[in-house]
């Protein structure tokens, strides 16, 4: 297949659904070889690999597998994440805090660490290595009321982690960029608990209302942001926070009392 990403290899964690699936589909449509790494099997594009982002052993074997089969790694989309159970600062348990952080924060830390190792195999030597790491944070990494406590803290960790990775790769002249994406409410399975609570129609109306643009995001709208950051079209962008939230964090928010993941 020819296209902007022809000959390039991308890993998308959490690529079986939601923003990950939309990103995988767009990358594939533009010519990339896509590895969908997820705990649940993918019915979409790309090669599926069963993968637990919180496990370093899983990352080692995933990278070895990709380098053996595809021979290179150019794009890493650290998208896998969980909202965790609804919980406030008073009700969140240590176990829940750790469970959410192991996926959302540890998982992105490991994803960046092994992405760099893989991308260094991409060029003939380090000086010619090249790549783009896209970490999916959230508006919850920017404002405090946008999610359960553990989720919000973990997305703040991803926001700053991404900057450290960006500066480290720049200092080492690896040719690897790293940015964070901050989606507002996007119509994915992460909202299933809310749909179950109040019904999809009413829930969607609630989420629509906190976005000045008037509606929640579609996965493909975030996929386009990921695609741009993955591409050379964003070659001067690193360590940046790319917000795609329908204006949610732009102005003075109207508080609904509802915490969106």
């Amino acid at each position, binding site marked *: 297949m020819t296209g902007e990403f022809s000959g390039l290899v991308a890993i998308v964690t959490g690529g079986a659904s939601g923003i990950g699936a939309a990103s995988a589909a767009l990358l594939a449509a533009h010519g990339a070889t896509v590895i969908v790494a997820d705990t649940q099997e993918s019915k979409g594009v790309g090669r599926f690999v069963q993968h637990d982002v919180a496990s370093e052993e899983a990352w080692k074997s995933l990278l070895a597998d990709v380098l053996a089969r595809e021979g290179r790694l150019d794009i890493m989309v650290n998208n896998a994440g969980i909202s965790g159970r609804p919980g406030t600062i008073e009700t969140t348990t*240590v176990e829940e805090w750790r469970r959410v952080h192991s996926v959302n924060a540890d998982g992105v*830390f490991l994803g960046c660490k092994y992405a760099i190792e893989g991308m260094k195999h991409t060029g003939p030597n380090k000086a010619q290595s090249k790549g783009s790491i896209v970490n999916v944070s959230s508006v*919850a990494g920017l404002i405090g009321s946008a999610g359960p406590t553990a989720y919000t803290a973990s997305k703040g960790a991803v926001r700053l982690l991404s900057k450290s990775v960006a500066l480290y790769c720049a200092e080492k002249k690896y040719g690897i960029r790293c940015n964070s994406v901050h989606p507002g409410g996007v119509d994915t399975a992460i909202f299933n608990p809310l749909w179950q609570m109040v019904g999809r129609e009413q829930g969607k109306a609630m989420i629509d209302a906190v976005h000045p643009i008037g509606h929640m995001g579609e996965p493909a709208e975030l996929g386009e942001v990921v695609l741009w950051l993955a591409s050379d079209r964003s070659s001067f962008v690193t360590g940046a926070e790319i917000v795609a939230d329908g204006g949610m964090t732009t102005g003075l928010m109207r508080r609904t009392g509802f915490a969106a993941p």
Partner: protein
Amino acid sequence: MPRLENKTVLISGGASGIGAATARQVVQEGGRAVLADRDAEAGKGLAAELGDQAVFTPLEVTDEASWQAAVAASLEAFGALHGLLNAAGVGAPSDIETCTVEEWRRVNDINSLGTFLGCKSAIAAMRRSGGGSIVNISSVLGLRGAAHAMAYNASKGAVRSLTKNVAMHCALTKSNIRCNSVHPGYIDTPMIAPRLDAAVGNMSGRQWLEALHPLGRLGKAEEVASMIVFLLSDESTFSTGSEFVCDGGLTA
């Protein structure tokens, strides 16, 4: 009138650095300081120096039961809890290529989980005491990245976001509890001592760090403490969920 009259403040990391400097100012301003620290010797020493308006209690910030005991000790000593300062923290160099999962967890547990547990454990007692103020120490590295402070960066980003979440929860539940983060630059405390001796090019570590700050020097713990006292006091009652930077112009 003293700015913290009859207010009881629980301070993690209260035996040294920013925590200790804040404890001194809390007592000077008419408040009571509960010095919670893993360093019992230093903590007891400072408590003795500060007199009957200060007590020491042992604290392991990553242990929820230890936090509950520290809150109970505060109530037992002074009958109420109005303020919490999460100042305990660890600074350690790390980068994305060489940091192990163990080191990542150690730094995030102390800085991030520790702050979470402090907030969680104190809120109920503060509410029963009529409300108050929580101050979480993040860092300029909760605002900006650093290539060689990867795990620390992530942990302080978590504290920054956690603080806003706590602030919103306390506001929505009408708890009369505020929560703000403080973002110090490089402050002359034991935490950065290893950096002061490590030469960078032909500069000493101290000179290099001083030159980072437009004010041309390191911050003093007392300068950060003074911002914290403002946030603990009733002078800042309309501030919650905000980021207070004390960095000599570093991020300007």
